[in-house]
């Protein structure tokens, strides 16, 4: 049933079915999300700049999600020797890098009016910047080695070693006193974010993940084709 997650030909078949509805769904949700963002209330302190959040937070979540997916696929790839997982790693890494970059740039733009500075060396910001560096190293490692097996396995092991950064990012706001605000949505019992802001945020997150998913599907399909024709 979930064979499309590990088998290239099944993945191709599944992707062909799902791609067009996915694009349609994504555009609908993205438009709905943008409208919701437009209608959402202004913050009484921050004014209009609070709307940067609707880009900043989803891209941060997706940067982490992408890395987690790569970690899972690396484990699968090393343990069960499945070539598809290396295809996924290669296809998905630039997407994660772009999400991290969007997160950092939007955060920087947000920080200037609120904190009065483009950049502070606080734990959350620094660990996300290191995540970007890790993504870049993964992309470079993939271009470094001539031999296919070495390239794939080295990248996969590096992804595994680099995954220690994920909990550091997640808990950096709890472990160190930082300027960055602590988690406000994931506190399930009582989210400290107002429902009128939570709704557009969640819709935008779904839209962002669909965009990421569509690009990932296209990139994986392209990578499968390249390998077939080599």
């Amino acid at each position, binding site marked *: 049933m979930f064979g499309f997650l590990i088998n290239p030909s099944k993945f191709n078949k599944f992707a062909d079915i799902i791609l067009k509805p996915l694009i349609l769904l994504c555009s609908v949700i993205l438009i709905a999300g943008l409208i919701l963002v437009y209608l959402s209330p202004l913050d009484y302190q921050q004014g209009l700049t609070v709307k940067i959040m609707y880009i900043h937070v989803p891209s941060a979540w997706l940067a982490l999600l992408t890395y987690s997916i790569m970690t899972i696929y690396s484990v699968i790839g090393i343990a069960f020797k499945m070539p598809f997982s290396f295809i996924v790693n290669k296809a998905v890494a630039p997407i994660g890098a772009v999400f991290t970059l969007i997160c950092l740039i939007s955060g920087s733009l947000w920080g200037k009016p609120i904190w009065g500075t483009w950049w502070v060396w606080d734990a959350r910001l620094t660990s996300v910047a290191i995540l970007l560096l890790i993504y870049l190293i993964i992309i470079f490692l993939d271009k470094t080695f001539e031999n296919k097996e*070495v390239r794939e396995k080295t990248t996969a092991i590096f992804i595994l070693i680099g995954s220690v950064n994920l909990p550091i990012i997640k808990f950096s706001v709890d472990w160190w006193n930082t300027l960055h605000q602590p988690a406000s949505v994931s506190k399930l019992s009582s989210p400290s974010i107002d429902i009128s802001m939570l709704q557009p945020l969640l819709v935008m997150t779904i839209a962002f993940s669909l965009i990421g998913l569509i690009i990932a599907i296209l990139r994986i399909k392209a990578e499968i084709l390249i390998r077939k024709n080599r």
Partner: protein
Amino acid sequence: MFFIKKIFLFFKRELKLFFRNIVSIFSNILFFFLSIFIFVFALGADEQNLKSIGLGIIWSLLVLSSTLSLRKFYEEDFNNGVLVIIHMRGISYELIVFLKILSHFLFVQVPFLISIPVASLLFNLPIYEVYNLIFTFIIGSLILSCLSSMSASMNLLNKANFSIGGIIVLLFSVPVIIFSVGINEVDSDFKSLINILIGMALIFLGISPWASAAFIKLALRNK
């Protein structure tokens, strides 16, 4: 009995190679001192200023200098096949890596210890900072040796992109520097930070033989 003799022989060989290569190790130390001079020229010779940032500069330059000897870690033994021959005489790759890390620690990192008091003198560091520096460097350099081992074995077949090995060491040396330099902050708890450093060293000593051996086997398969 034979096994211990083999390990002893391995160290004897490393020691001989160390004495043949002693110039390159002192070149690393020279690089370290020259970088300190460059820093002082670039920042200006204001004594108070240098005193406050001296420790950080010394630590970052120590990390940078330790990436210089990265390519010597396995490359020669790998290229001429000594690793395979030693393995065929009954020592697993994991143990070879472990011994290599220890010998790198003893023969490459420990010589740096003689440079630390001199460097601290140049920055007029207070005496307790020098003690802390020496103490944290002994533990931190063991972690650096583990990191160098992983990075060097990862790049055994990398013939084009030399800098990526150093980048990987620098990336993972970030926590080492955070905790080592953090010891000197006023409100920090010396004991707990030292425990964290020792814990990290033990974790890396556990991980890196496994990871490096996996990389070495991978490289041998595709040599």
